[in-house]
């Protein structure tokens, strides 16, 4: 009886080994993923403040501290490139691909064409949007927000407000 069960034990051992490797990989990545989640949450809060400030004041701030952000993590960097653009970088320790294996199975079963597995990257650079899907290392965005000229000057000169005017 023991001999007839040996092949099953070997099979379970192999699958169990595979599962164990997966568990080890997941556990090893857990700490870095936690750090990345904290980074993402703080960077998202900073991005919100930055977007709100830019929209409200029609200027790009010189630094993050000038918009009231005091707790800036070392993984987030901001630099003003010009009066109409800035660069925002977030450094992550791990990759978050947003890949969903169950969606792949579902697409095959329901005969729907598989989409792009790389996640949803932001395509509009007129505002700062932090995608939860990111790659390992530095993730930078160059943003060119729609900066309106001084409101009073435009009123006096009869500028059409229906179209945004960006400063140079």
């Amino acid at each position, binding site marked *: 009886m023991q001999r007839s069960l040996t092949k*099953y034990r070997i099979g379970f051992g192999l699958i169990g080994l595979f599962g164990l490797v997966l568990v080890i990989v997941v556990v090893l990545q857990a700490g870095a993923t936690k750090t990345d989640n904290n980074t993402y949450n703080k960077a998202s809060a900073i991005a919100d403040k930055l977007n709100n400030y830019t929209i409200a004041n029609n200027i790009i701030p010189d630094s993050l501290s000038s918009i009231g952000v005091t707790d800036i993590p070392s993984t987030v960097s901001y630099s003003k490139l010009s009066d109409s653009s800035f660069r925002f970088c977030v450094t992550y320790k791990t990759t978050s691909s947003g890949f969903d*294996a169950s969606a792949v199975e579902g697409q*095959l079963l329901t005969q729907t064409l598989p989409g*792009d597995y790389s996640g949803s990257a932001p395509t509009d650079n007129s505002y700062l949007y932090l995608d939860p899907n990111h790659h390992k290392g530095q993730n930078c965005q160059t943003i060119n927000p729609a900066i309106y000229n001084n409101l009073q000057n435009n009123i006096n000169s009869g500028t059409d407000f229906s179209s945004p005017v960006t400063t140079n």
Partner: protein
Amino acid sequence: MDNYPSDNHSTPINPPMPDDLSSPNPAEQQAYTGHIHPVEQVDDAPGAPHPAAWSSASEPASAPSPVASIFTATTTPESPLPVASASTSEVPSETSSLVPQAVVRVLSPRGVEYVFLTIALFTGAIGLISALISLVNGKTDFNVLEFPAAVLLVSIPIFAWLFLRLKKAELIDPKLKLDPSKRRSTQFMQIFSFIICFFTLIGFVSLIFAKMAGQYGGSSVKVFLDVLVILLVAGGILFYYWRDEHRSV
């Protein structure tokens, strides 16, 4: 009312039982113990007989309680296991054509284990497929692997333990392979894995056509590997149970 005359998985209807099962009356005790399936434990509570449980051309649905003492274990051609039947020698003539029919269907104790095994197999297969599909697509990040790892961590040991335990029991008692509860679980897995393989193949062929027509611009190699993973796991389950059942039958 469904009729399950050849389903030894069914539990015969119980006659009215007293609250106290340790009745001093031997005839009553025979009535409550003699009809119990040797493989299956009947856990249905005592109660009044179901009117529809009695099928007779000459007898109305409400059968008299003395009929309870006529159950004896016999074997039907369809089933190697004893089922309840009516003994005409102890029955009034007007009830001689009464045939007890199942109204309560329960799993055998082994059958419950086979259901547990099926659940563990089903869950583990999903975890294994998800993990392998993630890997063939080159995705090894935490968010992708955490669920498959958790599924495999829990389901593999439980499935392996149940499988080896039931396999040992089958080797000791080969008749266990014919247990209806077991066959119900394994047939469910066969049907389900067949459906998965069937529609996965259709999806793959559909994708090949879409690729030929230029409607799909993704990597067909990755999709082929995804299909291969699903077919290997689901097809493996189908193949194992198919062979196992046809061998035992």
